């Protein structure tokens, strides 16, 4: 790339989210200068108030759609973006706030707010891809710093990102961990969870919490059958499946099934 070429523009957008995934970009301390060299940060309110008009070459979108206004806004973001990559469990699966999808939002509003009529919200929290076409979904709650760099890097170098959708167990074994399920009897979602964290929790003797959502061939029902044999009850199984990726298809289907037909 010659220096005369215009640097691609990067925009970072926030929808319903905790900001943790955007923060991951600022966390790339060692690489921040290289990123700033490689792209022009055109819109990133968490980092700078200065903004550049679109269109943008690469948009990173954090957060889920929970209001009618955001359902509209994401369309304009899409229209202004050459490539749109969603980052984090909120943007890719609806996030923890998608627990509302399993409940009655009107009831929540009545309990939480003095004047519920001031609140305009949707009855569901949905991923960005439910509203507009998405070029790549980067999973995780929060996303992994190395994977975010890889996605930006792949975009800059015109190649597909090296992001694998197999189980966390593959990373866990590569790391040389002792399996917490087999050796300690700890319930672990690793076998059905999308890789990306480097098997962080099993490395600290904890079961995987499923932060990266379902793996490419996740079979939560088979895992549930096995965990039940090992002593996890259905209430706990539902709880394990209903965290940051509660509304991801494979997790949602199984937690809903368990709730409807408890054993």
């Amino acid at each position, binding site marked *: *790339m010659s220096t005369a070429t215009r640097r691609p523009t990067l925009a970072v957008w926030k929808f319903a989210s905790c900001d943790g995934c955007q923060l991951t970009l600022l966390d790339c301390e060692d*690489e921040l200068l*290289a*990123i700033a*060299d*490689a792209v022009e940060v055109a819109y990133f309110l968490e980092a700078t108030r200065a903004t550049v008009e679109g269109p943008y070459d690469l948009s990173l979108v954090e957060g889920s759609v929970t209001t009618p206004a955001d359902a509209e806004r994401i369309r304009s973001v899409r229209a202004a973006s050459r490539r749109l990559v969603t980052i984090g469990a909120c943007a890719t699966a609806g996030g923890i706030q998608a627990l509302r999808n399993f409940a009655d939002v009107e009831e929540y509003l009545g309990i939480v707010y003095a004047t519920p009529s001031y609140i305009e919200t949707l009855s569901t929290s949905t991923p960005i891809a439910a509203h507009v076409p998405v070029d790549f979904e980067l999973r995780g709650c929060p996303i992994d710093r190395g994977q975010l*760099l890889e996605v*930006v*890097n*792949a975009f*800059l*170098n015109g*190649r597909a990102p*090296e992001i*694998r*959708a*197999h*189980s966390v*167990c*593959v990373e866990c*074994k*590569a*790391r*040389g*961990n*002792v*399996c917490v*399920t*087999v*050796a*300690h009897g700890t319930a*672990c979602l*690793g*076998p*059905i969870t999308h890789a990306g964290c480097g098997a962080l929790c099993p490395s600290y*003797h904890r079961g995987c919490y499923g932060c990266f959502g379902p*793996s*490419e*061939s996740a*079979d939560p029902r*088979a*895992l549930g*059958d*096995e965990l039940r*044999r090992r002593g996890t009850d259905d209430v706990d199984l539902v709880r394990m499946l209903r965290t940051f990726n509660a509304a991801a298809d494979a997790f949602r289907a199984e937690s809903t099934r368990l709730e409807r037909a408890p054993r």
Partner: protein
Amino acid sequence: MDGRTGRDEPDAGRGTPAVVVDVDGLDRMIRGLARAGYRVVGPVARDGAVVLDDVDGVADLPAGVGDEQDAGRYRLTGVAGGALFAHTVGPHSARRFLSPPRRTLWSAARDGDGFTVDGPAADDPPVALVGVRGCDLAAIAVQDRVRQRSPHPDPACASARARAFVVAVDCARPASTCFCTSTGTGPAAGPGHDLALTELTDAHGHRFVVRVGSDRGAAALAGVPWRPATAADLDAAARVVGDAAGRITRRLDPARARDVLAAAPEHPHWDDVARRCLSCANCTLVCPTCFCTAVEDVTDLAGGHASRVERWDSCFTLDHSYLHGGAVRGSTRSRYRQWLTHKLSTWWDQFGETGCVGCGRCIAWCPAGIDLVAEVAAIAGAPGESGP
């Protein structure tokens, strides 16, 4: 220990008399290997399992630690007598050190309009593997034959293997998952070692009967006090191994498994396994003979530098069978069938032997407790353990 020390190396080769060393002698041997430039790796109890890791001496070895294994279950146990090798195989195997989970194959830097390839990385120090079991010794040989069949054997792996020093150990306490008597690979350590130990903890003391398998093995005993093994030592060693063999009850006939699976591509039992299998890949990643890898290309942000990295892959990932447009083995049924059929049946067609050495790791470390011996039995319609 009385007797000679050191300088006199026992002769190498099979048929040469075995010698006896004590625990201190083993310690000296390990330290000697480190001094000779080896990275010494041996069994270490950590996080509730015996894994393979760097060891400085016998103090690092898991004295008095045994294991209990079953389908999907592994627990450490205490074993009286303080034996250093009372355990069997854990989740790690030699494969981890001879073809590691992730390594850079080559890298290149942009150079004007072209690029220059960085020179090959310097060789890592050679590995000395202490405590290799019969099944794993056989697995190293299986991996050797796989590599020899390759038109482009990986030079780094071949070099790591050729330079590796192997201290094998006969098994005294097989786990319920072990079936090396069926595959002919244990519980005694077969050929392929530099030194092979039988640990004895009887009234005559804690000691090791050592068989010397190579000149390097003989050289490693220089500086270690040893005495010739007596008939009583050899009898005791034979009893340890004989008793161990007698306690192994799991059976798999490799030749029959080959035929059974070759005739069963559409057997309904594959659906039964597929309902339990998680496609998590653990079985393939603990198997000491699995060799599949994938490569990824890594670039830096500025596009000035790129490297090609090899990492362990598994036939349980979708990318493993990805051709343009999608994965050939899209279902768990087809992936489990691929794993079992390759390991036990088509491996014969490809490499002239079974791909299984009977270590039982895939049984113990499957989080769903799937047991290949039981699955083969179910497909063969034979009586035997049925699946859970």
